[in-house]
C-alpha cells in the first residue's frame, strides 16, 4: 500500500487516539451512567475506526489488539461489565500501547517484537480477564473450531459436478442485486457447465411487475477444489430473498428429493430440468420421483420445518426493534457529532503546502513593499492609489494566510487532564484542573513547541505548588487543589497562564537557595520579580524532596529557554500561602512580525518592535563625560548599552557629531531587563517577514534571522534576548554597582 495512504492512516489514528483519550478522561470524572455510556460509545467508535483502517493496511498487530479492547468495550456496552477506575486505567494504557503500535507501523515494522510484544501480551492478558477467557484457551478454541470445520468439509463429497438450484426472490432487483453477476462470479470458483433458465415464475403480462425478479436457474458447476460453504458464500447477499440449494450430485438421492419438494415448480418439471441440465440421468430422475412418493411423509415434515414466518410480521417486528435502536443511535450520534463537528469542517492540508503558501505570502509582502517604494518614487497619483488598494489586499492576504496556521490551544490543554490525573494519583493530591480560553488560537509551531514546557509547569504546580490535603485543610483551604489553565490575547501577544491555589513561592527559601548555589551575591538587592525569576536559573530547585515528577532542578531553566526560543517570556506572580501564577507570553506568530528598522553604517537591522521600549538620543548629558562608558543614566536607572557597529563590525559614524550626526539609542526591554543599542539612524516600522538563517549561520551570535526589505536589500533581525544578555554581561565586567551612579 502506498506510503501516502499509510501516512493518512497514521494522522487519522493519532487524531482518533486523542479523541479516545478525551473520552477516557471524561469517564474518569463522572459517575453519571448515561455520560459514561456515551463515553464508552465514543471510545468504541474510535477504536473501531482504527481497527477497520488498520485491517486495510494488513497491520495485524493493531487489528488483534484493538479487537480485544473492542470486545471489552462491547461487554460494557451490553451492560455485562461495569466501568471502574481499573478498567479506565487499563483502557488508558491500551490507548498508549495502541499509539505505540501505530508508531511502530509508521516506522515500517511488519510485526511487533521486544518490549512492545511483552506489553501487548500483558495488556491482552489483562483485557482477556474481563472477557472471561484466558488467551491460551481462546486460541485453542479457535483451533479446534477450525479443525472441526475442515474435517466436516473433507467429509463432504467434493464431487466434480455441483448442482446449484437458484430461485431469485422478487425483491432481488429492487435491492440492486444482479443475478447475472452472481452467476458470472461462479466462474471464479469453477467452470460453469450449464446454466438453465427456469422462467416458470414469470406471470401473465397484466400481473407482470418489471421491478420484480421472476428468474430461477439450475446450474451445473464443475469445481473440484471447493466446498459447499464457498459456493454458498457467493450468494450470501441474496440468500435472504432466494431459495438456494446446493448439491454435490449423485451423492444422496433423497437430498434431490427434498430439493425438488421445496422448489415451487411442479415436481415433474424439475425432474426434466435436472435431466436437461445434466445433473441427473433419466433413470436417476425416475428413481428420485419414485422414491419421493415413498418418502412423502418424511419430506413433508422437513418441508414444514422449512416454512418461515410471514415476512411482513417479521418485518414489522424488526421495524419496532429498529425504531428503538435508531433512536438510541441517533442520540449517541448527536453527542459524538458535537465533538466531531469541528474536525469535520476542516480540510487536512499538507503542512509543506501551507509552508510554501506562507513563504509565498512573505515574498508577496516583500514584493509589494518594493512596488510601493517605486510607486512613491514615480509620484504618479493613479499608480499610488492603485498601490494603496493592492497593499491593503496584500495585508489581508497576509493576515488570512497567517491565520491558516492558527490552531486552538484547547487540544493541548486537554492533554494536561491526563497529566493532572496521573500526577495527582502519584502524589495522592486531589486536583481540579480548570481550563478556560481553550478556543484561543495560536500558531501551530508554537503550540507544538509550547507543549512540553507547559506540561512541566503544570506538573510543578501540582507537585510543588499544591499542598497535601491535610495541610490545605489546616490553613482553611478546600481539600481539593485547583490548577487553572488559561489562554488569552493581550496586546499583540498570547498569554498562557498556569495558576494554582497552592502554597505560593517562598521568597526566603528562593533567596537562601540562590545564595547556596551561588546564583546571587550576599547583599544583592532584588525585587520580587527578580527573586521569582531565580527559579528559572539552571540548577535551581527548592523542593526539599525530589519526587519522580519534578524537583530535579533541570526543568525550569529548560522551560525558560524553550519559551525564550519562541520569542516568548515568562512572568511570575506569587503570594505566599495563596498561590502562584505563571504567565507565558508568546508572540502571535513566528512568520511575520512588526519590526523596527534601524541603520548601522551601511547595513540595516531589524529589532522586533514589541521589544522596543523607547528611542533616545545619546548625548553628553546622558552619557556623562566618559566617551568610553558603556552605560548611561536613564532617568536614574543604569542602562547598559552597546554599539551595534562594534558588535557587527560595521563602519559606524560615532563621534562625527559635527557632521550633524547623532547617535541614537534604541532601548529594548526583555524579561524586565533593559539594554540599549546605539545605532546610526532610526528608520521606523517595517513589516518583517522572518527568513531563517541557513545552517552555516546557525551559530551566529546576536542574529536570529534575516528579512528582505522592499528595496531588495537584506536586513538582519537582531536576537534581542541574546543581545540583552550580552550587553548586561559586558556591563558586569565593569562591575558597576547601583550605588556608583547618581
Amino acid at each position: 500500500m502506498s506510503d501516502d495512504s499509510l501516512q493518512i492512516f497514521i494522522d487519522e489514528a493519532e487524531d482518533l487516539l486523542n479523541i479516545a483519550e478525551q473520552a477516557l478522561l471524561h469517564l474518569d470524572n463522572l459517575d453519571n451512567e448515561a455520560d459514561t455510556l456515551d463515553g464508552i460509545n465514543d471510545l468504541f467508535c474510535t477504536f473501531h475506526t482504527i481497527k477497520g483502517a488498520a485491517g486495510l493496511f494488513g497491520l495485524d498487530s493493531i487489528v488483534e489488539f484493538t479487537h480485544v479492547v473492542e470486545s471489552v468495550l462491547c461487554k460494557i456496552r451490553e451492560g455485562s461489565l461495569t466501568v471502574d477506575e481499573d478498567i479506565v486505567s487499563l483502557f488508558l494504557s491500551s490507548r498508549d500501547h495502541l499509539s505505540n503500535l501505530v508508531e511502530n507501523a509508521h516506522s515500517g515494522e511488519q510485526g511487533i517484537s521486544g518490549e512492545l510484544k511483552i506489553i501487548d501480551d500483558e495488556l491482552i492478558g489483562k483485557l482477556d480477564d474481563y472477557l472471561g477467557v484466558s488467551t491460551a484457551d481462546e486460541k485453542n478454541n479457535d483451533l479446534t473450531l477450525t479443525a472441526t470445520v475442515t474435517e466436516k468439509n473433507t467429509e463432504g463429497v467434493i464431487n466434480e459436478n455441483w448442482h446449484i438450484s437458484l430461485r431469485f426472490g422478487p425483491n432481488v432487483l429492487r435491492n440492486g442485486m444482479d443475478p447475472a453477476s452472481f452467476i458470472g462470479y461462479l466462474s471464479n470458483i469453477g467452470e460453469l457447465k450449464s446454466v438453465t433458465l427456469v422462467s416458470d415464475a414469470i406471470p401473465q403480462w397484466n400481473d407482470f411487475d418489471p421491478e420484480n425478479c421472476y428468474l430461477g436457474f439450475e446450474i451445473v458447476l464443475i469445481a473440484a477444489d471447493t466446498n459447499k460453504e464457498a459456493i454458498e458464500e457467493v450468494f450470501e447477499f441474496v440468500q435472504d430473498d432466494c431459495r438456494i440449494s446446493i448439491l454435490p450430485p449423485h451423492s444422496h438421492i433423497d437430498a434431490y428429493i427434498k430439493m425438488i419438494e421445496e422448489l415451487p415448480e411442479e415436481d415433474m418439471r424439475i425432474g426434466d430440468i435436472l435431466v436437461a441440465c445434466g445433473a441427473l440421468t433419466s433413470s436417476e430422475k425416475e428413481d428420485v420421483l419414485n422414491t419421493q412418493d415413498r418418502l412423502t411423509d418424511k419430506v413433508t415434515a422437513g418441508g414444514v420445518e422449512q416454512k418461515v414466518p410471514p415476512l411482513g410480521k417479521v418485518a414489522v417486528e424488526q421495524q419496532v426493534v429498529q425504531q428503538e435502536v435508531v433512536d438510541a443511535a441517533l442520540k449517541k450520534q448527536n453527542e459524538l457529532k458535537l465533538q466531531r463537528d469541528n474536525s469535520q469542517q476542516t480540510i487536512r492540508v499538507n503542512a509543506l503546502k501551507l509552508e510554501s503558501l506562507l513563504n509565498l505570502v512573505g515574498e508577496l509582502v516583500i514584493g509589494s513593499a518594493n512596488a510601493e517604494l517605486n510607486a512613491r518614487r514615480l509620484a504618479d497619483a493613479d499608480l499610488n492609489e492603485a498601490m494603496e488598494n493592492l497593499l491593503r489586499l496584500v495585508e489581508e492576504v497576509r493576515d488570512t494566510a497567517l491565520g491558516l496556521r492558527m490552531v486552538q490551544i484547547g487540544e493541548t490543554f486537554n492533554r494536561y487532564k491526563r497529566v493532572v490525573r496521573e500526577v495527582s494519583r502519584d502524589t495522592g493530591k486531589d486536583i481540579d484542573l480548570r481550563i478556560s480560553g481553550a478556543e484561543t488560537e495560536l500558531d501551530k509551531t508554537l503550540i507544538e513547541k509550547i507543549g512540553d514546557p507547559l506540561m512541566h509547569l503544570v506538573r510543578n504546580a501540582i507537585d510543588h505548588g499544591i499542598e497535601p490535603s491535610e495541610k490545605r485543610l489546616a490553613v482553611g483551604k478546600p481539600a481539593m487543589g485547583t490548577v487553572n489553565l488559561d489562554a488569552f490575547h493581550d496586546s499583540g501577544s498570547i498569554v498562557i497562564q498556569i495558576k494554582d491555589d497552592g502554597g505560593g513561592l517562598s521568597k526566603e527559601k528562593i533567596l537562601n537557595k540562590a545564595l547556596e548555589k551561588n546564583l546571587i551575591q550576599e547583599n544583592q538587592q532584588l525585587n520580587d520579580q527578580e527573586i521569582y525569576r531565580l527559579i528559572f536559573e539552571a540548577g535551581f530547585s527548592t523542593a526539599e524532596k525530589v519526587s519522580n515528577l519534578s524537583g530535579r532542578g533541570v526543568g525550569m531553566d529548560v522551560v525558560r529557554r524553550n519559551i525564550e526560543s519562541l520569542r516568548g517570556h515568562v512572568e511570575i506572580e506569587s503570594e505566599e500561602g495563596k498561590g502562584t501564577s505563571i504567565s507565558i507570553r508568546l508572540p502571535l506568530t513566528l512568520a511575520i512580525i512588526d519590526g523596527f528598522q534601524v541603520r548601522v553604517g551601511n547595513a540595516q537591522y531589524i529589532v522586533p518592535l514589541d521589544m522596543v521600549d523607547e528611542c533616545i538620543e545619546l548625548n553628553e548629558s546622558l552619557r556623562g563625560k566618559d566617551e568610553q562608558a558603556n552605560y548611561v543614566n536613564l532617568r536614574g536607572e543604569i542602562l547598559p548599552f552597546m554599539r551595534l557597529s562594534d558588535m557587527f563590525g560595521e563602519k559606524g559614524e560615532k563621534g562625527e557629531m559635527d557632521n550633524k550626526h547623532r547617535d541614537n539609542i534604541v532601548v529594548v526591554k526583555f524579561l524586565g531587563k533593559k539594554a540599549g543599542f546605539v545605532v546610526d539612524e532610526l528608520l521606523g516600522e517595517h513589516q518583517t517577514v522572518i527568513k531563517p538563517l541557513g545552517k552555516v549561520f546557525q551559530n551566529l551570535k546576536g542574529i536570529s534571522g534575516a528579512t528582505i526589505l522592499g528595496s531588495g536589500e537584506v536586513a538582519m533581525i537582531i536576537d534581542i534576548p541574546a543581545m540583552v544578555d550580552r550587553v548586561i554581561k559586558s556591563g558586569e565586567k565593569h562591575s558597576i554597582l547601583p550605588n556608583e551612579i547618581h
Partner: protein
Amino acid sequence: MSKTILIVDDSSSVRSVVGIALKGAGYEVIEACDGKDALSKMTGQKIHLIVSDVNMPNMDGITFVKALKKLPAYKFTPVCMLTTEAGESKMQEGKAAGAKAWIIKPFQPPKLLDVVSKLVG
C-alpha cells in the same frame, strides 16, 4: 465503459486505500465522507455500486441507505455495507433498510474486490 463505485466512509485512510484498490481494478471511484456528502455527490450519473460505512457523523450509513431508496435514479443501486462482526444488529438494520451486501471489517483489499466483482461483475 468502466463501472463507477461510490465509497462512503468517514475515515480518509479507508477511502484512500479502498480508492486505490478499486481504481487499480479498473473502476471509477467517487469518494464521500458521510451519507450527506454522498447524497450531494449523487447528481444523476450512473453509479453501479455504493460501498458505505455504517457509523459516520452527520448521516450514518443506515439513514443514508433509507434516503437512497427514495431517490428514483438510485433506488436500485446496490449498497454494500462495511460492518463488523460485533455489529450484527446494525447489519440487520442495514439489510432491512435495503443494503443487502456487506463486508465484515477489518478486511483487506482483495476481499473488497472479491465482493465488488460479485455485485457488479
